[in-house]
């Protein structure tokens, strides 16, 4: 083994660096000479911390340090603005629903939960107590309806004024018009999984009591197709063009064609738990989060092809990532790093820039989770 040959670029890098070092030397202000070993001590401490991290137990310690103390360095202390202009965030927390404008200003809709956006972000649908309420982001309530055991309302993305809202009342899936009229039961004995509307249709996907996925017209009640997956689905989402339905289970992803006849299961059996997944707007890419052994990884499938659905690692860190959301223009990813009390705004899946924001719990209260990043 020879160690004597120069490394690539060694000489040129040396010349460049010498110029930088010389300039720093010329600009330096000579200090008096009291002996001060603090820099070396700091280096030694850093080395000791790093050394402790090299062994598996030490790695766990460092991981927990990053979890609790650090997250990403140079994080902004608060959410001063959204990186995607003219967009709005909807955040559900234990305090209520927060609407965050692109300039960082935010409003608490106190006591609301399970809030989600209407198709153009003009309204919210949310639960307060035993009422389902349609309201404006400023809190003005347009209509409400009382039901027991309310959960997970979702607005259809018709966008023409003829929208529907699907929601769960105990174990019944109900549908109501966007104007608050025509409330009716669509299916009974369903699993508590938020329903998912196929974009620009009145077709809704939900999970029945046996864990099967059901795709059904909310207008006629006709079942279009059903499908079973290896693990009971925990979340459903349609791609923006309605061509694919994504089912996330505890440790698997299943992507169905719109007819349900074809499916893709890109994760092998035994994969690490999948805690969130989201279609990239305007495409069929999927970002998803896996968590195992004290670490979390944000992945991205740029394309869905039977033999070429390869995941790219976007970001990884110690502790718990909880949720991922795309900006409406698909240029940013928002990643909830719960254990670090941070959100990361990641510029594209190629990570051209990361904007970390800390102090999430202080700003939004416990259990803050991005529920939607909405349209201008």
């Amino acid at each position, binding site marked *: 083994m020879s160690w004597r040959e*120069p*490394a690539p670029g*060694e000489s040129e*890098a040396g010349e460049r660096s010498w110029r930088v070092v010389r300039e720093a030397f010329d600009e330096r202000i000579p200090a008096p*000479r009291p002996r001060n070993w603090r820099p070396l001590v700091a280096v030694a401490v850093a080395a000791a911390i790093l*050394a402790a991290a090299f062994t598996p137990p030490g790695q766990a310690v460092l991981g927990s340090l990053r979890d609790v103390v650090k997250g990403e360095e140079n994080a902004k202390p608060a959410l001063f603005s959204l990186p995607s202009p003219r967009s709005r965030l909807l955040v559900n927390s234990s305090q209520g629903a927060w609407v965050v404008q692109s300039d960082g200003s935010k409003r608490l809709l106190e006591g609301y939960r399970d809030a989600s956006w209407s198709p153009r972000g003009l309204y919210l649908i949310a639960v307060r107590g035993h009422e389902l309420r349609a309201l404006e982001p400023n809190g003005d309530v347009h209509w409400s309806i009382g039901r027991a055991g309310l959960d997970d309302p979702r607005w259809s993305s018709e966008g023409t004024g003829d929208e529907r809202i699907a929601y769960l009342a105990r174990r019944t899936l109900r549908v109501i018009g966007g104007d608050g009229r025509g409330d009716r039961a669509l299916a009974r004995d369903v699993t508590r999984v938020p329903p998912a509307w196929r974009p620009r249709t009145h077709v809704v996907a939900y999970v029945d009591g046996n864990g099967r996925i059901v795709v059904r017209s909310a207008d006629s009640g006709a079942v279009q197709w059903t499908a079973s997956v290896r693990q009971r689905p925990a979340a459903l989402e349609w791609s923006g063009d309605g061509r694919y339905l994504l089912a996330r289970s505890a440790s698997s992803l299943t992507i169905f064609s719109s007819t349900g006849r074809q499916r893709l299961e890109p994760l092998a059996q035994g994969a690490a738990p999948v805690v969130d997944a989201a279609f990239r707007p305007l495409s069929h890419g999927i970002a998803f989060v896996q968590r195992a052994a004290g670490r979390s990884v944000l992945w991205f499938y740029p394309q869905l092809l039977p033999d070429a659905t390869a995941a790219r690692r976007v970001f990884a860190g110690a502790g718990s990532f909880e949720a991922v959301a795309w900006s409406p223009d698909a240029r940013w990813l928002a990643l909830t790093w719960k254990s670090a009390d941070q959100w990361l705004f990641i510029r594209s899946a190629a990570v051209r820039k990361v904007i970390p924001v800390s102090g999430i719990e202080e700003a939004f209260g416990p259990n803050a989770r991005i529920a939607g990043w909405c349209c201008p």
Partner: protein
Amino acid sequence: MAGSHGDERAWIRGAQRGSESDLESLFRHHWPRAYRAAYLVVHDAAAAEDIAQEAFLAAVRSLDRFDRRRPFGPWLHRIVVNRAIDWSRARALRREVGEEALVSVAAGDRPENPHPQTLASALAELSPEHRAVIVLRHLLEYTPGEIAGLLGLPRGTVNSRLRRGLDELAQQVEEDVR
């Protein structure tokens, strides 16, 4: 190459008194091994340049406080290797590009990389901490005891990492690398 411990002390003393030529002698004496060490740990020329350069800048900032009785090399190499490890670990935690891009970057390095490709690519397969101890031992020629001091590790840990790292290297390179 010149550079006895006496030369080094003289260069540091001269630099502390403001001599740019002494600082340049110190820089040119230590740059190749500092850069090479960083490169062999991080396998990224731009990052290696940043790491080695930043270590020298740290030296300039600390020049007035530096104890001339101590050798400069270990002080510099400790910074370089620790920063290189840190950088590698950070890259492992936060992929700045996809795996495919990394592969293409590595492939692009080959034509101008005079290091035996088997060594460079085999080293890249090791963990940063294994790379670091091997580079400190075989490029910078520190003893295991000195490496333990530089990295703040027990000597036994250094020895086991060396042994394990070299075993892995030997498997990768398919020839005796010791």
